[in-house]
């Protein structure tokens, strides 16, 4: 079984300040982990992924995430928020099943960026 918990439903930051979006997971397998971003009424865009290589993963738009097995966490960070970062962010854990890999999504964190 696997699950993913995004610890904050909303995160509010000021433009230019750091961003931290928290994600904890549980998985019976060595997990593949992802962060996706969704802007209003749009599809989802992959920000970054962890697939058992380097534990610090760099993604697009200045985002990065660190896989910490001991803490079962995969938090998303960015040093300086931009207004364009305001969106919904989803943490995803993937498990193998029936010849496929099934992603389980967290409930999402809404990032609000104030000018």
């Amino acid at each position, binding site marked *: 079984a696997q699950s993913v918990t995004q610890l904050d439903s909303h995160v509010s930051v000021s433009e230019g300040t750091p961003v931290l979006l928290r994600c904890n997971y549980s998985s019976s397998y060595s997990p593949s982990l992802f962060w*996706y971003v969704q802007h209003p*009424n749009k*599809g*989802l865009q992959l920000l970054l992924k962890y697939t058992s290589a380097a534990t610090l993963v760099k993604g697009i738009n200045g985002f990065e995430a660190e896989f910490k097995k001991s803490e079962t966490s995969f938090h998303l960070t960015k040093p300086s928020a931009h207004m364009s970062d305001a969106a919904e962010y989803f943490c995803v854990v993937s498990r*193998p099943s*029936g010849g*496929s*890999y099934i992603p389980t*999504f967290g*409930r999402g964190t809404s990032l609000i960026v104030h000018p």
Partner: protein
Amino acid sequence: SQTIHQWPATLVQPVGSPLSLECTVEGTSNPNLYWYRQAAGRGLQLLFYSVGIGQISSEVPQNLSASRPQDRQFILSSKKLLLSDSGFYLCAWSRSTGYGYTFGSGTRLTVV
């Protein structure tokens, strides 16, 4: 390069009417395909996935069904829509390795 197409972008349907949403993938073969629903203020719920033609797995029993008549075509259907079927439907594909999922632009379905 691979692309995924999903249509229509928006749809308003009366209760009890049928539904057909289509998703196609270009530039790859034998993709894994997925249908997700996103209700207002909630995360994504996996509805169906498919690892090959005619192979459909259902994650949640409900009023919907899925079919995969061709390798790169995935269809979400309903015979009679319910109000609770309203939501944002997303199609996605991945390689069999599962290293990343690419999503379509979504269909906003409103059942009235």
